[in-house]
């Protein structure tokens, strides 16, 4: 781990990404301390004001403090992406492990179901799931999570299958070690590298998906501020109030950029094929 951090430090780009993410996490955790106002407090007299001393980033169409909303938005956006990716990754891990390890009929069934979900376009799938479950923050996270499951399942399954080819596993099975033990001990650590990379990339994907859902009116419920919701609302006002789009878009771009840079570097670091 220490060595890993060291090599991450050596990779400047990855390190920038890591620091960026760390910053967003800190802002999210300390949101109540950092934000001067409640993110949903409406100041009737201050609608669409430009950045000033009282409202650092200006106010939005309902007279709410954009700075506070961006700060709390970090909380909401991170919560959405972490939970969604958590659902997708854990779901995919379990299904992929089962599918890849046991193969046969159960693999057939799982993979066919995954194919069905894979064949649905992402946004439409999320849209349908939210429509079925009813819109709420939790359901948005679940929907995005479900969208991610097939990707993770495929990834884990193929990794498990390639690990399973190894002779030491064959011998472990022959000796009579319990399959679960084998999975925990041998398979899981071996698939961690591609898995972690996929997770970082999915995290940024989740933020974007939430933004897209916000555009369709199915994102986070008002008055909660997610960056996607803010961005979508600002579209109507960006001409005379450019600050309404500037700050949330900067937040979203920087975060996604950092996730991607980190993901890329992790890929370079963890992929044995790219090691120099």
């Amino acid at each position: 781990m220490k060595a890993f951090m060291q090599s991450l430090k050596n990779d400047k780009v990855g390190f920038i990404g890591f620091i960026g993410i760390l910053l967003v996490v800190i802002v999210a955790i300390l949101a109540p301390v950092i934000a001067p106002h409640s993110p949903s407090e409406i100041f009737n007299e201050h609608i669409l004001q430009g950045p000033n001393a009282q409202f650092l980033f200006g106010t939005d169409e309902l007279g709410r403090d954009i700075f506070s909303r961006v700060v709390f938005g970090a909380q909401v956006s991170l919560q959405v992406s972490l939970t969604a990716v958590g659902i997708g990754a854990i779901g995919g891990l379990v299904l992929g492990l089962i599918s890849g390890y046991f193969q046969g009929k159960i693999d057939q069934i799982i993979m066919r179901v995954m194919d069905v979900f894979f064949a649905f376009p992402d946004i439409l799938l999320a849209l349908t799931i939210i429509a079925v479950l009813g819109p709420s923050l939790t359901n948005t996270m679940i929907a995005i999570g479900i969208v991610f499951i097939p990707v993770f399942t495929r990834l884990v399954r193929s990794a498990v299958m390639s690990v399973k080819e190894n002779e030491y596993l064959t011998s472990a099975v022959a000796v009579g070690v319990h399959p679960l033990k084998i999975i925990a001990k041998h398979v899981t650590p071996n698939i961690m590298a591609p898995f972690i990379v996929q997770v970082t990339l999915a995290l940024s994907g989740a933020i974007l998906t939430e933004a897209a859902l916000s555009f369709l009116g199915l994102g986070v419920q008002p008055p909660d501020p997610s960056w996607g919701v803010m961005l979508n609302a600002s579209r109507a006002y960006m001409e005379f109030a450019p600050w309404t789009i500037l700050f949330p878009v900067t937040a979203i771009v920087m975060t996604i950029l950092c996730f991607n840079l980190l993901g890329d570097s992790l890929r370079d670091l963890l992929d044995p094929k790219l090691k120099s």
Partner: protein
Amino acid sequence: MLIPVLFGVSIVIFIALRVIPGDVAATILGTDATPETLAQLRKNFGLDLPIYEQYLQWIGGVLTGDFGESMRTGKEVLPDILDRFAITFELTILAAIISWIIAIPMGILAGIKRNSKTDFSVRVISLLGVSVPNFALATVLILVLSLSFSYSPPVGYVGFWEDPIRNLQILFLPALVMGTSMAGAVMRMTRSSILEILRQDFIRTIRAKGAKEKIVIFDHALKNAMIPILTIIGLQVGVLLGGTVIIEQIFSLPGLGQLVLTGINQRDFTVVQGAVLFIAFVFVLINLLVDLLYSYLDPRITYK
């Protein structure tokens, strides 16, 4: 592969639509609804039948090429889907081409100059495209172009074969927005594939032959890297096909995405079912095509 997946998709979407609250009769009538007219309308659409019967009727029609009529507009579903698919498909292909034009050279450059300043800047620039949500980028583009250059894309879609220039004018901006958002992933894949390929022994062999770097990179490294790149392109074309919803709406393009979105909002079951099934069909087909392309590019793979 094709049949069971499509069958699964048809069942999932059929059931999902009926689980979602609301139906087409209520959305059509709105505040003008009376219980009698609602009941009558549902009867007219066959929504009073048991679910399995509705499904059998629908899927039976689909199997004979009859996707039914839109419950809302009375338009035949299949011809509408095909018309719109032509647009969405063209948009997707243009977006893909734009992203390749951006991403592949950048990916190669970043791969060759790994860990240099060029590498860093190329990575950051191409990732910027992915980082901005499509709809924000699209709106900003529209606004800036109309304010600063008094330009807006021509209104009223025209097919490519009717007026290619006007058609491309209409599609360029949306394709650009989608292309930039896709470029990051393609760039990333190109870069890492090139990195991997350049490490291979045969690249040294080719250099030892006295080949120019141009031959090394384009004839050999890129061709080999194309295989993983193709995977991601295949996936992305599939994703794009369904991901045009937002772009189509912003740029007023009469594509499949809008059809599905309006269909879902209006609970136009026949339209949504037909369109989703069709999109899934195309998605599977594209994956098949990508598999075929693999075997064409890579003599080691034989496709059965």
